[in-house]
């Protein structure tokens, strides 16, 4: 009988611990499918963050390391500088990448470190139970902004892709979303490009994936996906923010 659908080889058999309706499962799968398609599972080394995806080291079948909070790009730098022939990626959330790890993010981008960064932006700290993130929207209610994020008190959410695209260093910066089939397909294309760039020696490639956290947003999975469209994407528009090799022939 013909096999029409199967689990990517780049994922282990370990069951995901993610909450019902959490798109981390989709995003893990996209990364794994890309690794399968590029045939890099045996060469890949992944760096897991601190946050909901901390146990990504159990889910990806390639060699993995678990980094301190926010330090994944530095850890990835150490690995890549030792083993340039390997494919090194980080998988980080918004608290990890855009708050505590902002310096590591900006400087690895500025160095055009030849790594791939998957940045999952769901506008909240998930693992610790729903606190305000650097990407939480103005007015967004979280455990630590119970009256809504007051931008006069704690500032504005950071648009990471736009900010990084002002740097001379990075090769490729794109924002995608995983709230509908079309966007998921486009997200996979961007992730694939981010890995191909590394294989081709082009440098730092970051894909910001606008995602949902139904549990901590206090929404059903369906309502959360709708909130991405109605509230997240107007502040965080989908698009390619930097692509140094745009227009080059494949």
């Amino acid at each position, binding site marked *: 009988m013909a096999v029409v659908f199967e689990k990517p080889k780049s994922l*282990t058999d370990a069951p995901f611990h993610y909450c019902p309706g959490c798109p981390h499962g989709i995003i893990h799968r996209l990364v794994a499918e890309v690794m399968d398609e590029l045939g890099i*599972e*045996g*060469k*890949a*080394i992944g*760096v897991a963050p601190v946050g909901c995806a*901390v*146990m990504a*080291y*159990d889910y*990806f*079948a*390639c*060699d*993995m*390391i*678990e*980094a*301190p909070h926010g*330090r994944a790009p*530095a*850890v*990835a*730098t*150490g*690995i*890549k*500088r*030792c*083993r340039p022939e*390997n*494919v090194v990626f980080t998988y980080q959330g918004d608290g990890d990448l855009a708050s505590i790890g902002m*310096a*590591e993010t*900006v*400087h690895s981008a500025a160095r055009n470190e030849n790594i791939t960064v998957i940045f999952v932006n769901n506008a909240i700290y998930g693992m610790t139970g729903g606190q305000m993130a650097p990407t939480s929207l103005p007015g967004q209610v979280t455990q630590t902004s119970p009256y809504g994020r007051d931008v006069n008190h704690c500032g504005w959410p950071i648009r990471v892709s736009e900010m990084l695209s002002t740097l001379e260093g990075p090769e490729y910066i794109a924002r995608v979303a995983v709230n509908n089939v079309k966007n998921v397909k486009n997200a996979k294309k961007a992730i694939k490009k981010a890995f191909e760039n590394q294989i081709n020696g082009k440098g730092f490639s970051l894909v910001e994936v606008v995602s949902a956290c139904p549990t901590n947003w206090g929404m059903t999975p369906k309502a959360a996906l709708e909130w991405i469209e109605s509230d997240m994407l107007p502040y965080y528009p989908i698009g390619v923010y930097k692509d140094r090799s745009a227009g080059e022939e494949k």
Partner: protein
Amino acid sequence: MAERILMKGNEAIAEAAIRAGCRHYFGYPITPQTEIAAYMAKKMPKIGGVFLQAESEIASINMVYGAAAAGMRVMTSSSSPGVSLKAEGLSYIAGSDVPALVVNVQRGGPGLGGIQPSQSDYFQATKGGGHGDYRMIVLAPASVQEMASLTIKGFDLADKYCVTSMILADGTIGQMMEPITFEDTEPKVYDKPWALTGTEGKRKHNVVNSLYLKPDELEKKNFERYEKYAEIEKNEAMWEEYMMDDAEYCVVAFGIASRVAKNAVVAAREEGIKVGLIRPITLWPFPTAAFEAAQDKVKAFISVELNMGQMIEDIRLATGCKKPVSLCNRTGGMIPGPDEVLEAIRNAKKGAL
């Protein structure tokens, strides 16, 4: 015969690291250790190695973590305030059981402190610094020659036990020049089957990790790690004894303080005081055996330190408080003269008689 070279202490560390097979250095500038980075920046690109100036001490220790996990001999260096920033990474490196070499060329503290030599990071180095149950091998050079030889030794011990070796030097030894020789030996190579190399489809994935959510698993891991530490305590303590055979008083000092103390011991002997010196070379493991042997023959110990009295606690523990231990100390970047140590020896004699 090996050539004699005149070198600065910091440069000796860098050259020794290269000779030990280290080809990856990640650091961040801070006085008084920047010569190490400068030396690496000059040499590494010429020998196919990597020198990278990180954006912070935090980033540099995490680059070390990544490189160590990738199976490479790797190092970073800093001075006291910078080592505080590295403490997070030191804890992760310990919790993940990967080997690394970290240099602390100490300056005065706390806070921004000063830039003059100090030994006030003894607690930080020997008792932890980062969070959690862990140890580092702490090596205390007292000469430029030892800056080199203990660096090579440090890499070997780190690889042998999968721990961090810390070179705990000070601004004086870092900055001073002395003639040294390098032995012509090939770096030792250790098997690292746990390293992140890519599976190549030939094995199950390697995971370098310090997270254990189940408390019984974490406890087991810590118990296992402490069995390893017990091995290190049993096998790796190093110290030097000077004029201890007939000593009635014992000066204890490490690093630059031991050189001052040695002069004071000679001066005290000229006055007829039978005094010797124990110089711990490993601060962890602390050379307890030397003190167990000495505590029955001497009347008192004098701890000479460039801090407010940190090693003195380990001397008291190692001797079971059987004999009095006095403190002769300067701090904040000040170094005692031999006359100050001599006075402390005389006072110990008065007190013990």
